[in-house]
């Protein structure tokens, strides 16, 4: 049996595990509510008129496909306990004494977490696409690019969560550490750099904001009145560069999580 066959087996059963958990369906429900709420408020409050901007499908898409938070939360919830729980809940005593390499186990878990997160993101984009077609009879070309960046952002967060999950003893600790890193530490650094006039293009949170920057409408213009207006540097993540930045983080941190997991002992 090749290692690839084992990878398929690990992925299949890890995915089954994800789909059996209530948190998957909770995340799905929250996603649906969040997207519908965004659409309802955009239309109900007539946001384009309030912003003094024309109501175009591009502007609507910027609002309804700003899924970076969903990508982050989805990835964190599925990945935070992926490795740590094997040690914390002692399930590793059943899994690890099998003739399968740790790299295969980590990769299988990663793919399963990615599929679960991607399913949630896909649902969000499907609803948004339906709304765009319903309201404007047209899809902005940037929606595919936005979806691709959202998926890469999910990979980046998964890799961060896997790194913490391989390093820390507890699943809760890994989940909180990932959330704090992405929603507190990174934004502090990015915002500080922006105020100082440096471009934080290399920061994952800044790069993640490119999900809303694929429609040809500069974010600065779309979110006029946001703190970015006062910045010396414009908050305008370039999509291709952002995609590559997220990919780099995803690859390096995923490799780090494998390296740590391979060396971790079941004490």
């Amino acid at each position: 049996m090749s290692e690839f066959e084992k990878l398929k087996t690990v992925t299949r059963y890890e995915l089954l595990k994800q789909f059996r958990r209530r948190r998957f369906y909770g995340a799905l429900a929250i996603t649906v509510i969040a997207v519908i709420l965004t659409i309802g408020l955009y239309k109900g409050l007539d946001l384009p008129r309030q912003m003094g901007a024309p109501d175009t499908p591009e502007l609507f898409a910027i609002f309804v496909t700003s899924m970076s938070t969903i990508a982050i939360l989805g990835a964190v919830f599925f990945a935070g306990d992926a490795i740590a729980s094997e040690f914390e809940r002692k399930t590793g005593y059943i899994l690890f004494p099998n003739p399968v390499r740790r790299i295969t186990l980590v990769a299988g878990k990663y793919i399963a977490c990615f599929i679960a997160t991607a399913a949630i993101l896909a649902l969000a984009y499907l609803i948004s696409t339906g709304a765009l077609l319903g309201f404007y009879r047209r899809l902005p070309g940037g929606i595919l690019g936005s979806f691709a960046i959202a998926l890469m952002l999910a990979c980046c967060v998964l890799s961060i969560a896997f790194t913490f999950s391989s390093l820390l003893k507890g699943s809760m600790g890994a989940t909180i550490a990932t959330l704090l890193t992405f929603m507190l530490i990174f934004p502090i650094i990015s915002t500080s750099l922006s105020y100082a006039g440096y471009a934080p293009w290399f920061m994952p949170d800044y790069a993640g904001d490119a999900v809303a920057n694929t429609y040809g409408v500069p974010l600065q213009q779309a979110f006029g009145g946001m703190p970015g207006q006062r910045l010396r540097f414009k908050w305008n993540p370039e999509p291709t560069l952002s995609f590559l930045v997220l990919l780099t983080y995803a690859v390096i941190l995923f490799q780090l999580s494998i390296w740590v997991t391979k060396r971790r002992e079941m004490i």
Partner: protein
Amino acid sequence: MDGSIVIEGLSKYYNSFLALDNLSLKVRRNEDVALLGPNGAGKTTTLKLLCGLLRPSSGTAYINGANVAEERERAVSMVGAILETPEFYPFFTPDETLNYLGRLRKMHGRELRHRIKEVLKLVGLERWANVRVEKFSRGMKQRLALAQALLHDPPILILDEPSLGLDPRGMMEVREILKEARKGKTVFFASHLLTEVAQICKKVAIIDHGKLRAYDNIAHLKKKYRSLERAYLKLTEVTI
């Protein structure tokens, strides 16, 4: 390499704490050997090292000639193990759990389905095959642990206190299952229950503070110390 399990000068430090001190012993094919010792003696550490869950600080362990540190996958493919008090994924049923583990051990299709039925029957869980493990008692999980250890019909069983946490009936049943399942296998198991050891094995390795104190037939130890209990107490430095 002569012997199913060969341990040569195995030591393990946890930071500065020496848990296993230069342990050497050999378990021959189809032999049943118990690793006896008080809590913290190094029994579980030894078994974890044999299953590749820990890296030795020094020394080497071989499973059927395969160096555990260098050829971990090949070594553990010949082993069925129960370590500590194992937990299972609560969202899976025993059938799904064994399917998963069986596939990781190159089992497939009809052969796997047949073997799953067989081992679940052996451990008395056939009626629970499709019930999620989250509903299981400690004893039922221990039976499932035994089922997964036997699933691929390994030539070597490594068991860490297989009846731990079970009520007297459960302990008796696990011993009966082991009596049946161990035929034609090498069994190396840790315990501090002398009655259990005497019922299952002919040979014991007594360790204390990480050091091997004795490795002999139970009959010889009984003859020398008048009983296995006295041998155990004498060799683990407890005064009678």
